[in-house]
């Protein structure tokens, strides 16, 4: 091989070309062959033909060559790229090591932004994006009864209006064609109390009764044993129970041989037939905030006479849509009502996917949260763009030098982007730790009424999301500075100070724009958070109708031997003993507490409007004498119950003002008779102020209080104690007092009444807390941005300030100028932000409570707060400017 002449080396001046290479190589072969043949005596033309004939299919070989060559070229290019990337990363790391302050701030800011985003994504993922933790969960459908009732009647009927009788459930199950399976569970969890004995101290159990096909319909495989059989769900069937996974682990030390053993519940042996898998927690899907230890079979024959108690869930046949099922239900339920004229109602039902039922209410809140963290991330990016730019000013010369030495603009942009990507990846790493911590914290808030809490974790999807937003953030905050810094006039940048001022000015304009947008975003966040916070305060301010402080409740058990007549004296004696304890102010018992479970019966005034369409439902509470004052409910008129209200005396009730307004408008209800509660009319003896019974936000509905001494239909018993000392300290003495009467009283704890309120507001509290934290973060970042820009411009203008001071400007004047500049930026941002907030406020209007989305007070407060923060951020550079020594500034300039 001879050395290649110089000109030949530039044959591929325009870059590698594998196809041409292949062509050249083959042409060389053919020409050499032809030469050889000519030498052997062939004529040139014939020789050429012979060479080609011998070669065979040149075209096919050429194709193979092009393919292989292309592949190699790509591989080589990729390798080069990779090597360059490595070099860029090494360069970046070295660079950042030299600027530890910048690196730390940038990574921390990114970590906060990305951490918040990943945490919210993890929550959103579980609640909105991921299907429920059941196989083919999109085919699970939730039935909500009472569709034909007007909204007001639905509210008045509470849970009773949405549930089904055993008959309605069974008839629908038998006659429908849309569903592969229909199942039910009993929603009045505490109608029967369950007590575990013979396994340590007696224990109150959280128990839910489910239909025999409950697990199979949801598609849950027991971890151990089996589900319930049909026989176990019959009246007189063998008592059976399934343990929840955590109950099995904690109470039975995960005994692998538990199946088939008997446990003592309510004094009777119950066979454990199975253990639920860890992945299925009844409460987290159907009753957030509750604790469920046991599933037991629902005996339909037992519930048949109890009215609406069953919640119904169905699994659609493959290929059937919810709309088709809805259509069938719309036709089937009225038809069934015609067949069964004795039914209370037609059970017109609204069918939704189970997921909509479980998480639908949270949809908007979560979307708002998602937007909030998105805004945070934007602010973070804007902030870092700014930081990069101010560093760019000092690196301008280095970059210009590199361009002058032959680096292309694209190459410089790539290098600068590598730098921002390295930063954002580091930030993502740290942010992931933050997200882990937040999600862990949220997942362990057992008392919060958020569904699926326990299954919240940072999973593969969250990791993917992290990577995605880290790359996006890196590109977003890197691209603008990279373009700005790599462009510009080479010569200008290379020359000295004076001329680079102009470039500095254009940078500064760009940076001001960034800061204005940052403030606008922070303003939107702040106003949104302000509105939500104000709503939250309004909710906390609501008149509950009772006094939760200094009061606590406990589940109690009494033994009246099944004789109703004996109950009154027993309850009276219990309350007498409890009230006599030191520290106890008063005590009472009710079957259900406000803001807890509820049920509804009918209440109509005797002689009142009895038209068929009117709403007659009222919430029903069975209580003892003394309960109403103990809870701090206010008796407006009449008297409280007395122990002298016995089964034999005139049956009486107390109603709330809402009931009085509905049934006896404009009249005094005390002394009037009411129908619907019992077979015979009952007498109204008192009226109390309205009590919030379902939520703090919803207005009160009609309520009826019935003495436990006159009505046997109780739904459990809860003792409420109002005390002068912290109620928790009374637990042992109260339990001791109760056990003197009933040795079987299970261990229980006092729960402050406040916890009911906390429980009721927990989703809102959780949401407001997060939004408030995020907006605080946003404002902090915006302040950092303002500080950065103003401080930088002061540094740039040191010389100018020096000149002005030498010419007689006072320090106060200089400071004012800097602050005025800050104010200008802030006001521009606030105006933009306020306009945007008006739009955003409309979107969150449905999340507000008695707060207008255009609440002027909130808007003004938040705007002032933002301006104040901005001025504080601008003050420090302003002070520095005022301290510029004219002599030093001029000499150094």
């Amino acid at each position, binding site marked *: *091989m*001879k*050395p*290649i*002449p110089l000109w*030949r080396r530039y*044959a591929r001046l325009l870059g590698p070309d594998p196809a041409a*290479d292949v062509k*050249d*190589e*083959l042409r*060389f*072969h053919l*020409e*050499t*062959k032809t*030469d050889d043949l000519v030498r052997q005596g062939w004529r040139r033309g014939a020789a050429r033909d012979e060479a080609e004939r*011998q*070669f*065979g*299919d040149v075209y*096919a*070989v050429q194709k*193979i*060559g092009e393919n*292989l*060559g292309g*592949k*190699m070229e790509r*591989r080589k290019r990729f390798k080069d790229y990779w090597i360059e990337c490595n070099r860029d990363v090494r360069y970046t790391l070295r660079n950042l090591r030299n600027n530890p302050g910048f690196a730390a701030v940038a990574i921390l800011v990114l970590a906060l932004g990305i951490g918040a985003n990943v945490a919210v994504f993890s929550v959103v993922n579980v609640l909105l994006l991921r299907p429920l933790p059941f196989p083919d969960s999109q085919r699970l459908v939730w039935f909500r009864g009472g569709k034909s009732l007007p909204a007001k009647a639905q509210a008045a009927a509470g849970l009773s209006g949405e549930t089904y009788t055993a008959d309605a459930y069974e008839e629908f199950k038998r006659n429908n064609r849309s569903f592969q399976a229909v199942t039910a569970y009993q929603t009045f969890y505490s109608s029967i109390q369950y007590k575990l004995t013979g396994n340590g101290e007696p224990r109150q159990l959280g128990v839910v009764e489910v239909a025999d096909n409950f697990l199979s319909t949801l598609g849950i495989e027991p971890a151990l044993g089996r589900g319930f059989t049909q026989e176990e769900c019959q009246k007189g069937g063998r008592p059976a129970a399934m343990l929840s996974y955590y109950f099995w682990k904690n109470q039975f030390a995960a005994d692998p041989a538990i199946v088939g053993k008997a446990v003592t519940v309510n004094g009777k042996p119950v066979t454990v037939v199975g253990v639920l898998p860890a992945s299925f927690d009844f409460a987290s899907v159907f009753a957030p905030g509750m604790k469920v230890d046991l599933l037991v079979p629902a005996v339909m024959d037992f519930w048949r006479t109890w009215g609406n108690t069953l919640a119904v869930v169905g699994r659609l046949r493959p290929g059937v849509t919810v709309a088709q099922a809805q259509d069938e239900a719309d036709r089937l339920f009225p038809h069934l009502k015609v067949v069964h004229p004795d039914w209370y109602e037609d059970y017109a039902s609204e069918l939704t996917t189970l997921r909509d039922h479980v998480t639908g209410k949270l949809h908007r809140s979560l979307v708002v949260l998602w937007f909030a963290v998105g805004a945070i991330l934007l602010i973070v990016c804007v902030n870092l763009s700014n930081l990069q730019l101010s560093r760019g000013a000092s690196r301008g010369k280095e970059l210009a030098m590199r361009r002058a030495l032959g680096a292309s603009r694209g190459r410089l942009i790539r290098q600068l982007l590598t730098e921002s990507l390295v930063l954002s990846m580091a930030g993502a790493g740290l942010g992931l730790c933050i997200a882990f911590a937040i999600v862990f914290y949220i997942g362990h808030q057992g008392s919060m009424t958020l569904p699926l809490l326990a299954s919240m974790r940072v999973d593969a999807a969250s990791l993917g999301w992290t990577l995605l937003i880290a790359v996006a953030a890196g590109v977003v905050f890197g691209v603008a500075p990279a373009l700005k810094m790599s462009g510009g006039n080479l010569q200008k940048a290379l020359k000295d100070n004076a001329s680079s001022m102009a470039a500095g000015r254009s940078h500064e304009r760009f940076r001001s724009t960034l800061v204005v947008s940052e403030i606008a975003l922070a303003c939107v966040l702040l106003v949104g958070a302000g509105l939500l916070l104000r709503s939250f305060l309004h909710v906390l301010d609501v008149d509950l109708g009772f006094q939760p402080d200094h009061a606590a409740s406990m589940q109690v058990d009494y033994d009246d031997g099944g004789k109703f007549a004996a109950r009154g004296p027993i309850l009276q004696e219990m309350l007498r003993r409890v009230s006599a304890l030191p520290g106890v102010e008063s005590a009472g018992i009710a079957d259900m507490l406000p803001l807890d479970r509820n049920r509804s019966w009918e209440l109509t005034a005797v002689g009142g409007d009895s038209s068929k369409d009117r709403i007659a439902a009222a919430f029903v509470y069975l209580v003892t004498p003394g309960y109403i004052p103990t809870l701090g409910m206010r008796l407006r008129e009449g008297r409280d119950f007395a122990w002298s209200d016995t089964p034999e005396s005139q049956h009486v009730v107390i109603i709330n003002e809402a009931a009085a307004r509905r049934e006896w408008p404009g009249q005094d209800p005390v002394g009037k008779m009411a129908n619907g509660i019992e077979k015979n009319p009952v007498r109204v003896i008192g009226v109390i102020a309205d009590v919030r019974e379902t939520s703090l936000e919803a207005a009160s509905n009609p309520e009826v209080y019935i003495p436990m001494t006159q009505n046997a239909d109780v739904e459990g018993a809860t003792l409420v104690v109002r005390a002068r000392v912290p109620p928790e300290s009374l637990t042992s003495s109260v339990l001791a007092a109760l056990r003197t009467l009933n040795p079987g009283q299970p261990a229980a704890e006092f729960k402050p009444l406040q916890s009911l309120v906390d429980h009721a507001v927990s989703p809102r509290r959780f949401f407001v807390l997060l939004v408030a934290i995020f907006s605080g973060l946003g404002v902090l970042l915006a302040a950092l941005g303002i500080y950065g820009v103003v401080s930088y411009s002061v540094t740039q203008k040191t010389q100018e300030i020096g000149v002005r001071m030498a010419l007689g400007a006072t320090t106060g004047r200089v400071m004012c100028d800097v602050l005025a500049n800050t104010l200008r930026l802030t006001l521009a941002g606030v105006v933009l932000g306020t306009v945007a907030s008006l739009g955003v406020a409309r979107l969150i209007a449905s999340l507000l409570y008695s707060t207008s989305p255009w609440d002027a007070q909130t808007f003004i407060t938040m705007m002032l707060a933002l301006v104040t923060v901005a001025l504080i951020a601008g003050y420090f550079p302003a002070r520095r400017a005022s301290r510029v020594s004219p002599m030093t500034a001029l000499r150094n300039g």
Partner: protein
Amino acid sequence: MDKAKLELFRGTLDVLILKSLIWGALHGYSITDFIRRQSGEALLVEEGTLYPALWRLESKQLVEAEWGLSENNRKAKFYRLTPAGRRQLQQESSNWAAYSVAVAKVLGATGLNSSEEQA
């Protein structure tokens, strides 16, 4: 003239190419030439198989290519062995030797039970 055309076993061509490059860089044409001459005109390498084989070796980085000028002053692509190619050649050569001895032994067998180990 009559040439005994011997079919090349799969993979054998690669070794022959590597061997032809052991004394220095060659272009495709001289590789065919080398193999033809060294095999006493017994092995005829078809161009249609040679070039793809060469390119595959190049993409496996067993040989590397460079453009240069041929004896007849034409631009030609020269191939040379890489260190990996050299190792591959050694490996394949000893494999080939062992293989041919084994095949020869079997083909030279004289009876069903007459292998040397049993004797």
